[in-house]
């Protein structure tokens, strides 16, 4: 009885203390202070950020697969070198983001294992196939363009390590978008077949790209607290609209048609798009997109086939450490 009573009291104290600390924490956020790894933070803030940053990291790594598919078939050496550099950047982005996620207390190994076990998600967009070279142009132009739209506000996110990682990522993404758009310009200035290839890629990617911004504001589960904590600065629909407004003139320049016959420009100059098919989004998230199984299989294979390298590096480091200790003892 006594012990139990004591325990209850302790829990209550902690609750009170946490409430005071949570208020202090929110005051720091409201004052635009950055939260750093060793600062006190509510457990839910830590959990939300670990989920978001690690999903972001997984997306960068899985995002290497659809583009890696075209490295050996790039049409010129210049394009091949650029695509290689871009895919290498995506890997780097994944690594910056894993490092930021780890500062919240999960190990890299745990985060990667959660992804390989299918417990952690990655961006739905990478579950679509890259069928032609024009898909590589479209990914750079639209997928990276949408990512930039999402990521620029994250440079001011309340969590310091995430914000700093995003600043580096955004600098590099702008090369990605420009190399993609250049591919599209070349195709659209080329033969009828090349232009048709560009149009076909736009037709297939347009709607999945709009879905990248997440569910509409009315149904998004994470938005409210994320906004209060200044993890999120703009709503999904606001960012989506910004992206559409920026992209329509770029498509017009290319002479391509956005596959949305219902699209109209309103009096304020905003391009209003038609209803998005959210059942497709849910299906892809649930694992039933065109490439979900391929992507997971490729990641697992790479992880398993790399196991001997990790083991060898660890064994070599251990051997050297033992030798140093032995020499020091002599």
């Amino acid at each position, binding site marked *: 009885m006594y012990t139990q009573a004591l325990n209850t009291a302790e829990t209550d104290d902690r609750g009170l203390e946490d409430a005071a600390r949570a208020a202090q924490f929110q005051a720091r956020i409201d004052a635009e202070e950055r939260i*750093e790894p060793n600062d006190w933070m509510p457990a839910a803030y830590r959990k939300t950020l670990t989920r978001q940053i690690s999903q972001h990291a997984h997306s960068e790594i899985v995002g290497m697969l659809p583009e890696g598919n075209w490295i050996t078939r790039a049409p010129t050496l210049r394009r091949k070198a650029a695509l290689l550099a871009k895919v290498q950047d995506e890997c*780097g982005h994944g690594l*910056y983001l894993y490092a930021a996620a780890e500062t919240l207390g999960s190990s890299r190994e745990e985060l990667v294992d959660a992804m390989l076990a299918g417990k952690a998600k990655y961006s739905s967009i990478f579950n679509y196939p890259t069928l032609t070279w024009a898909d590589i142009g479209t990914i750079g132009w639209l997928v990276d363009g949408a990512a930039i739209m999402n990521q620029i506000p994250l440079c001011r996110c309340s969590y310091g390590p995430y914000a700093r*990682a995003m600043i580096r990522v955004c600098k590099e993404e702008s090369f990605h978008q420009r190399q993609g758009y250049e591919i599209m310009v070349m195709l659209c200035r080329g033969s009828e077949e090349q232009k048709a290839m560009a149009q076909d890629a736009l037709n297939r990617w347009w709607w999945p790209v709009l879905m990248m911004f997440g569910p509409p504001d009315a149904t998004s589960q994470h938005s409210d607290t994320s906004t209060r904590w200044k993890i999120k600065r703009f709503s999904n629909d606001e960012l989506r609209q910004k992206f559409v407004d920026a992209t329509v003139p770029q498509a017009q320049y290319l002479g391509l048609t956005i596959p949305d016959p219902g699209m109209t420009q309103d009096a304020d100059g905003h391009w209003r798009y038609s209803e998005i098919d959210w059942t497709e989004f849910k299906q892809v998230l649930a694992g039933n997109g065109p490439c979900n199984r391929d992507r997971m299989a490729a990641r697992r294979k790479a992880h398993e086939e790399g196991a001997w390298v990790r*083991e060898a*590096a660890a064994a070599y*480091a251990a051997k*050297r450490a033992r030798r140093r200790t032995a020499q020091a003892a002599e």
Partner: protein
Amino acid sequence: MATPNTPLWEVFIRSRNGLAHKHVGSLHANDATMALQAARDIYTRRGEGLSIWVVPSSAITASDPAEKGMMFEPAESKIYRHPTFYEVPEEVGHM
């Protein structure tokens, strides 16, 4: 499963002659040689540096953020340490 977690390293880069090494991020590697190579690949893909330091994260001793008030208060209350505290007659000009 038996492999232990790969150690964490902090990466510092000196971007130009005359500037100090600056912390740019962290990475995992089994030893110092691999950490340097990985730092080159991850943090200097666009000519960001002339020199890299890698330091085991476990070797860093950090101040406690909960005690930052006490830690830095002595600097807060000594405004006479700043040049702007002092008045120089206008006739003297820039000093």
